[in-house]
């Protein structure tokens, strides 16, 4: 029973304290400076404080908490990836997700719905089988299912997709879930704040001081901070930060759009993804259909929306669910996706000593929020890449040793 709510009914004044302390001054130095108060940055701060006892930390945020991609994604959490590195990494994340609301004492609406990656071609089926095998090998619950299983989970779906692209089967991933994205940032933020981390919003990083190949400090819009450790977790703004330390990366920025319908009574339980149609859909606890498609086709540092996006996505949705034609699109938006050539992130140490990068999250970053925080905090404290992220170093490109996740991340190939 939600006994906690009784407290609200009983008290004359609203009995809740601030989740995020307002800090009027920025100290002259911190042990660690984290750039970006999104899910990843705040998760890193949280684990730094909780697991490593490092609390002399400032998280600097140009705008407001969770205002970047953390507040713009379509909230899908899964671990059905393609490579051994990817599967183990995302699986560790899912395990953290499952206890996160308890850790935070905050409802994240973490809802395990089951996730179907639909295959419309033989080659897609081959990829699904490959993923299922790699997943099973690492103890992740995924299997290939046929059309009758899919129809059973989504009885209202047209498996022939309007006759255009009949579904042959799917990769079914039982642990696939959705969650309330903003609440994850608030939960990590509050948890870090309670343990002494300082979150400074409306504070922009203007420059990073590197002397003799080592980080010395950070220039901000509210003053200079001396520090030897900077963790950069700014997603779409990554190239601007890496330029500040003179680092070359393969990261390129394209907009990723999304949209929601107006709220409807619950009718769709599972999460459905189609690589061939380049679309995906789930229904939130509020009843809105949350839908997305592939990346915008050209570089742009903007969160603007397009008509082609909403048109194309709606058309494909109607192929799968022809009865939706009178449902209205309520809102569309975009985030800036920091893409990489192999659709795997760029994490860990860099050639600049004391500069740690958490980036290259493209269209696959929200699900990794907890494991990112865990591994990056470990990396920053020990100045050594956490074992789970050794496949994601910046260095891998120089070595031509890519971690190829294009078959399992994103829907636009």
């Amino acid at each position, binding site marked *: 029973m939600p006994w906690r709510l009784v407290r609200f009914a009983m008290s004359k004044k609203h009995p809740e304290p601030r989740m995020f302390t307002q800090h009027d001054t920025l100290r002259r130095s911190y042990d660690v400076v984290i750039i970006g108060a999104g899910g990843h940055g705040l998760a890193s701060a949280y684990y730094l404080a909780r697991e490593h006892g490092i609390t002399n930390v400032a998280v600097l945020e140009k705008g407001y908490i969770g205002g970047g991609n953390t507040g713009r994604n379509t909230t899908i959490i899964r671990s059905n990836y393609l490579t051994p590195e990817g599967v183990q990494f995302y699986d560790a994340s899912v395990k953290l997700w499952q206890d996160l609301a308890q850790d935070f004492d905050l409802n994240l609406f973490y809802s395990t719905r089951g996730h179907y990656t639909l295959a419309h071609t033989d080659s897609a089926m081959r990829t699904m089988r490959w993923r299922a095998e790699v997943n099973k090998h690492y103890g992740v619950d995924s299997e290939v299912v046929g059309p009758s299983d899919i129809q059973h989970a989504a009885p209202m779906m047209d498996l022939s997709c309007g006759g255009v692209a009949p579904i042959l089967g799917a990769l079914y991933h039982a642990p696939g879930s959705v969650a309330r994205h903003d609440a994850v940032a608030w939960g990590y933020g509050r948890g870090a704040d309670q343990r002494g981390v300082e979150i400074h919003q409306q504070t922009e990083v203007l420059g990073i001081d590197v002397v003799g190949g080592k980080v010395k400090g950070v220039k901000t819009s509210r003053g200079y901070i001396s520090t030897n450790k900077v963790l950069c977790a700014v997603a779409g703004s990554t190239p601007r930060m890496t330029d500040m330390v003179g680092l070359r990366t393969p990261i390129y920025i394209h907009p990723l759009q999304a949209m929601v319908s107006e709220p409807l009574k619950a009718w769709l339980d599972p999460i459905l993804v189609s690589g061939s149609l380049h679309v995906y859909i789930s229904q939130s606890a509020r009843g809105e259909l949350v839908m997305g498609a592939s990346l915008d086709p050209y570089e742009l540092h903007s969160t603007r929306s397009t008509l082609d996006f909403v048109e194309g996505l709606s058309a494909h949705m109607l192929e799968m669910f022809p*009865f939706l034609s009178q449902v209205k699109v309520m809102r569309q938006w975009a985030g800036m996706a920091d893409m990489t050539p192999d659709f795997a992130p760029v994490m860990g140490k860099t050639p600049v000593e004391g500069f740690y990068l958490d980036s290259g999250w493209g269209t696959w970053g929200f699900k990794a929020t907890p494991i990112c925080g865990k591994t990056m905090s470990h990396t920053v404290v020990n100045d050594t890449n956490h074992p789970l992220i050794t496949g994601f170093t910046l260095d891998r490109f120089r070595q031509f040793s890519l971690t190829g996740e294009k078959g399992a991340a994103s829907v636009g190939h």
Partner: protein
Amino acid sequence: MRLAEHAGEWIDRTKTLDFSYEGTRYRGFAGDTITSALWASEVSVLGRSFKYHRPRGVLSLANHDVNVMLQDGARINVRADVTELIADANWHSVNTFGGVAGDRARWIGKLAPFLPVGFYYKAFYSKRWFPRWERMFRNMTGLGQVALDAPHIRTPKRYGFCDVLVIGAGPSGLSAALTAAERGADVVIVDENARSGGSGTYQLGGDNARFHTVRALDEKVRAHPRIRVQTSTLAAAYYADHWVPLVDATRITKMRAKAIVVASGAFEQPAVFRNNDLPGVMLASAAQRLAYRYSVSPGERVVVLTANADGYRAALDMLARGIVVTAVVELRASHRFGELAHELEARGVEVMTSSCVVEAVPNKAGDRLAAVRIGALPPVGTAAVSTSTREIKCDTLLMSVGWAPAANLLYQAGTSMRYDKTVEQFVPDRLPEGVFACGRVNGVFSFDSKLQDGRRAGELAAIHSGHAASAATFGEYAVIVPAEPESPSHAWPIVAHAAGKNFVDFDEDLQLKDFANAVQEGFDNIELLKRFSTNGMGPSQGKH
């Protein structure tokens, strides 16, 4: 109740249409919307609110709220305020448990103390019970029910091209269109309403001169060979390079314009006071639309709550249509339109200044306004003193306390706005190339000024699209439109009350204290406040 015929009414009294709502048959006229037909039939409760399932009636009558959201089979989440009658349709209000009248979920209102802002974050996350709680939430949220056998309706699309696209066919939009066309531009003017004329067809102040001026302007626009007029057409969004999808009942036209004039007007704002969501409490412009477009009486005994000249004009419009107005409650101590107040007093309407509505009082059944409690306007931030109030019996309260610009297309185009204290609203500061604004969205409210502002914008749009006929005449429109004599919007038309139920967001059932509490919890940035409280995230989002 249906009023006497009005020259500009949108209904055709020779054609009746029968339909049913919540199982009861009703009759309306061709041209009625579902809401106007129901209101004419004395139906006050037209829906139940999202969270507390409180009875709701007409608020904006303009699709700026979803108090009246209906469903008939595959016709899902229909905005009854702006949807014309469909013969033999069988409507029900969405999201009720057992119908509008006997909605079993109305007891949730009694649980309100247990449901503070963001309450669902503070509990319900036990691993064991979450699936059960989630089923409950999914049951309670969501509006219409998807009909799994609804037909796949394919909407045809076509492309359109023009020199100047004018969005909004009110006084300033019509002026802009005519000026641009006279300059040689090929003009398309659209309006989401069934007919053009905008506020010029219902914000009359009981004065037919204004009505005839707009009608004459409208006729000139329709007669012009270079102007295409499309009503019942929504300019759905602004996309890059002046690409605007125009949505009408049958198709989408993807319009490419060389220049765009946004003359979309303003959204009227509700006053915030206890029980401001009772059926019978509505925006003044809603009452004017009811009275002039559909010849429907908003109610039998009207009181007007105002803080601008529009409110006095609305009172005069009610009197002109034969509706009893007993009082005007003016928030301000003084203002510039004394002659309007005098005219009302001469006709037996009591005018009170520095006063506010402390509380709207329901009838015994709790489903219609029965009286308003008036008191002195308290200083900002303090609650109203409910002991020294005066009760005035009425079944209808018109709220006319201010406006917010309908600037969505301007935002989407990348306009930066600035707050103008003289009109207490945001106005365009830096417009993108080829985008122009006029009328109330531009902070221009006086009638003659709107016409002038429209001419200015139309002129500039024509020049931008390549029709700079002669520099000499341009000088005529380089004159700056005169400043407003006073602000049409009150800075803080909000009255706190210990017992709450003073609503700010009607879609999401958010009361005044929800905002204070959210800010107290650290959500003190407007974006964080929105995401935590869900303010402005309901189905009428973007229309406030």
